[in-house]
């Protein structure tokens, strides 16, 4: 292996970003992942286990881990925390009845030591539904202003229409990049 190969390998590794996507069940995590990757979204079943996708975006290699959100799976979430650069928390903005559950689960994650360095992006999903709470209300409902330990941003979006998905992902990549990588 020549020096150039080693350098190239380091370079590739350098631009790798690991994103962990979590949230209550029915939030639309898998739909966001598939929509972002340009796949068909009509045939998605509730996730029993997890999905991993490696995407190329803006010269970054994104390893996205989408873990099922059913109550019985949440205790396994911690198996995926290691070396996470960014946490994407997905919320069903129309599910007003479970906003408290949603807040509790999110704040439980934020005290996790292994997620301490991760950037947090909150997707207020399903904004295509007329009954969806706007991102500002979700922000209030989840007490996001209390968070001082992580860089965070809330972004209203719709996985069905694809609205604002790119903006959210771009933000989280930029934030991670500014912490982790020195630019060329």
């Amino acid at each position: 292996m020549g020096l150039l190969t080693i350098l190239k390998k380091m370079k590739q590794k350098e631009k790798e970003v690991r994103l962990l996507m979590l949230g209550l069940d029915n939030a639309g995590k898998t739909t966001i992942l598939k929509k972002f990757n340009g796949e068909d979204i009509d045939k998605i079943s509730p996730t029993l286990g997890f999905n991993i996708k490696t995407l190329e975006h803006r010269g970054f290699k994104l390893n996205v881990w989408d873990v099922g959100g059913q109550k019985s799976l949440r205790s396994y979430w911690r198996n995926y925390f290691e070396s996470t650069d960014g946490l994407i928390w997905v919320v069903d903005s129309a599910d007003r009845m479970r906003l408290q559950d949603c807040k509790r689960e999110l704040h439980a994650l934020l005290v996790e030591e292994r997620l301490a360095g991760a950037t947090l992006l909150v997707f207020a999903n399903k904004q295509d539904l007329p009954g969806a709470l706007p991102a500002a209300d979700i922000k209030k409902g989840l007490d996001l202003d209390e968070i001082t330990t992580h860089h965070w941003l809330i972004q209203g979006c719709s996985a069905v229409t694809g609205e604002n998905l790119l903006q959210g992902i771009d933000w989280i990549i930029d934030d991670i990049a500014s912490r982790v990588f020195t630019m060329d």
Partner: protein
Amino acid sequence: MANADGAVFVTKENICDSEFTKQFIADKLQKREDERLAHVQKRKEEKSAVSAAQENTKSFYEQFSKEKNDLENELSLCDSLDKNKLVDKFDEISVMYQKLQRFVTESTMFLPAYDLQQTQENLSKLQTSIQEKRNELIPKKKFAFKSKKKGTVSEKVEEKPKPVLEDEDVLLADCKFSDRNGEQLVMDSTINKKDVALTCLDSCIVKLHGTPSAVHINKLSNCTILSGPVSGSIFIRECKNCTFVVACQQLRIHTTTDTKFYIHVTSRAIIEDCSTVSFGPYNWTYDDIEKHYEMSGLDKRRNSWDDIDDFNWLAADKHSPNWSLIPEDDRKKFT
């Protein structure tokens, strides 16, 4: 001797020649060295000029605050702008914002950690104010479901500005039934493409003659729920002794007991913390159902009503004790 002379001569000539060449090469090398040094010097000057101009924290702040000001100016202009142009304007603003964000990212190399943190705080404040402005000027269209008596509903309500959140009740979705007992409740096609919520109902019959995008159901007992095709997901929890006749793309059932489901689901239905729930195929018909199927985009040919994932029963070789199929003779018809 001639040979020797010749040899001497040749050697002499060689010496002369090689000395001449040496001198020539030395000159050339010196010249090159000078050129190289000059070039290096020039590069150095250029580079330090550039880096002084660009990579200096002060000039970073100048450019950052200039672009930030531009952005804020644009934002304040929005107030007086025509409604039709607002969307384009906000797109423009978000492009400006992204450019600014990229500029910050590229400058991280030379910015001290404190300045970087400050800048990022500034950035996120800016984004929040953009978002707030956007929400203020382009309010989301709101829909409220009123009882059928009032006739035409939706048009006028949609014009009104968004009501301020007051209490838990308002926190529930717009198309909803809650806290009813022993009633027959009907919604018509005004729920198309909307989200519907049903909560805390006892001994009610609910008919949804339409194609909503999503349905949330919570805390029902002794109810019968009939719904047209739902283009997205239905989420059911904490129900007892009910009957559901629903069609949808995704169906999640939680903490529900003694309940029958007649379903058309195009992905796989799941149950969690449920017991004595049973399943049969969807069989409700009403006047516009074909039209609603078409609008919902559900594939009529694909129905996995008999293939349920139990999240509390992961053994593949043994059937979950929590759910069963309704025998054909026991299936009810719904109209």
